[in-house]
């Protein structure tokens, strides 16, 4: 990058920018790296220096009823909400891309509006609306709420993927005698799968990290992992939180790598195809 004939000023700029950016990246990544070792701390303080190595906080995480239940709740609620958001969002995205009707822009705006409204307003509104139907303090209520928050991400990513989709393929399949369902599962879905999966991952991440709506809608019985972490941070901050955090960081790394893999695969496929 840096030419051998660069002036001292250019050299200073070159080095200075890299040092500055290094510090900014340190700021971004350090907090995440700092909390992981503390989950292996032998004593019960969430601070350095560590007194020794121990797995007791992981044991606590996987055996204490509150943490276990919160993990189980998260593993029930988030996949169900994601599935609901993926199915409804994908269907709607396909319809929205192909249909022409007045008010389409408005309808699209409404469908992705949960992304825009501040989450505390969503939480209060759902709390007031769900109470009369007995949906507060239920799994159903939480799944519905989390799905609504995740749907816009599915709609937008699938719509974006469909921009490059050639609908003549659907016509071709139809003219060759495939029914609409066969066409969808054998022709359309494989093509838009990366969009559906990354939309689903976004929806899952939203739900899995959601705490405000859960604070309002869930009874202690439905407390999710973030909800449990919230009360943990508020009440007694212990290394079990670090253990939970480490597990969550692992999960987010996994999701990030999946997305990155999907993106590269997509780029590769696009590179091969003549389009």
């Amino acid at each position, binding site marked *: 990058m840096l030419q051998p004939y660069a002036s001292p000023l250019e050299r200073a700029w070159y080095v200075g920018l890299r040092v500055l950016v290094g510090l900014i990246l340190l700021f971004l990544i350090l907090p995440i790296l700092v909390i992981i070792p503390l989950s292996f701390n032998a004593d019960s303080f969430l601070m350095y220096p560590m007194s020794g190595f121990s797995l007791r906080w992981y044991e606590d995480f996987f055996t204490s009823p509150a943490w276990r239940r919160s993990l189980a709740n998260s593993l029930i609620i988030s996949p169900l909400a994601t599935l609901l958001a993926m199915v409804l969002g994908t269907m709607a995205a396909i319809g929205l891309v192909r249909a022409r009707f007045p008010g389409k822009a408005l309808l699209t705006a409404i469908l992705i509006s949960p992304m825009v409204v501040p989450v505390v307003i969503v939480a209060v509104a759902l709390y007031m609306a769900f109470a009369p139907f007995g949906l507060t303090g239920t799994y159903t209520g939480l799944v519905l709420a989390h799905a609504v928050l995740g749907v816009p991400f599915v709609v937008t990513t699938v719509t974006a993927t469909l921009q490059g989709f050639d609908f003549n393929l659907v016509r071709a399949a139809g003219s060759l005698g495939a029914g609409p369902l066969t066409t969808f599962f054998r022709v359309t879905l494989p093509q838009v799968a990366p969009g559906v999966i990354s939309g689903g991952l976004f929806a899952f991440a939203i739900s899995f990290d959601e705490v405000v709506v859960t604070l309002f809608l869930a009874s202690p019985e439905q407390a999710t992992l973030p909800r449990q972490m*919230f009360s943990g941070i508020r009440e007694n901050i212990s290394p079990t939180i670090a253990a939970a955090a480490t597990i969550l960081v692992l999960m987010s790394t996994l999701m990030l790598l999946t997305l990155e893999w999907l993106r590269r695969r997509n780029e590769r496929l696009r590179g091969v195809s003549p389009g």
Partner: protein
Amino acid sequence: MTALCETADAPIAPRALKRRLRHAERRRNLLFAALIGPLAFFVLASFIVPIASLLGKSIDNPEVHGNLPQTLALLEDWSGDALPDDATFASLAHELTQAAGTPAVANIAKRLNREQPGTRTLVMRTARGLPLPEGTPAREGLIQLDARWGETQTWHLLRNAGGAFTGFYLLSAVDRTVDADGNIVASPPEEAVYLDVLKRTFVMSIVVTAVCLLLGFPLAYLMATLPARHANLLMILVLLPFWTSVLVRVAAWIVLLQNEGLINQLLMWTGVTEAPVQMLFNRFGVYVAMVHILLPFMVLPLYSVMKGIPPAYLRAAVSLGCPPLRSFWRVYFPLTLPGIGAGALLVFILCMGYYITPALLGGPNDQMISYFIAFYTNQTVNWGMASALSVVLLAATLVLYGFYVRYLGTPNTDAR
């Protein structure tokens, strides 16, 4: 489509063709409706309707209106100069007797108390004294229970609080109230807190947005100029925190910023300070964590704009004799403005709605408007006030979002 293909080799009358086309068109439309319909219904039922009904609660006024309908009807014809007539007194005694022992009394008391502090006791005491002993005239009986029923001002209060709708909450949310003559005036100082909260919300959002821009610009710039392999590594370092739970990051900042935390240990070891610096549960801690959470939202749009600026522009400026710093400022920087606009608006919009980070890392003076919405919903069950503050926050958000869509296109959620 299939209808056309089946008959492609047989000649068809134009009218039949038209009919078939119409038929196919209708089937297509039905299919699209069936595809979009479920989500439209779902979002309508579990998002739009709840939000609309929440916003409606900011002008809803059911407490007095719903429980004392007959008295309010009689007060409609009341001149307001002297005390109301006996029928009005009797009606109030009757309706309060009916409400006694139900939550309705507490609701009426609470509603009137909001209009004028101290009125709660008036309603509660009166309700406890009811029903009046047999034969006592309602007027004397009520005044005996509480002398305030003998003041016209009390009846004005009742009438003012008795409308089906009220601007009370919305006005309160901007520190305004209606005085006895019906003029909109500033709220009494002890109740005028919301404009301060709103101002604080804006100031904090501006600070966080500015710091995000200062940190995000060089980061995005380097990423855009590095070769793809290195840029990808940097991108992963930006995206990993982006995908990590907010709760994890809040916990991590507590570990770093607490009095015995690494930052304080470092400060004391290097001799910058003798005693630990308080960095948690104040504004500083909130700022640090919010910048950390929102920085990726600034970097991603900046990066995607900078990536599209051909490096030749800058080289051309330099080769034409413009000094490097100046050409950066005059050529490169203006081209990044759409990215700056998108990133700053996005960060600002997200900032305004923040609840969790200030709640966990801030002190009482660092809470933003969201905190008060939650507070009025959960702690004091003042849904009118919670709704009015929601109206203010939502209006601010939608206006900014309108700018975003109008000038910068729809948001790119693909993170790239």
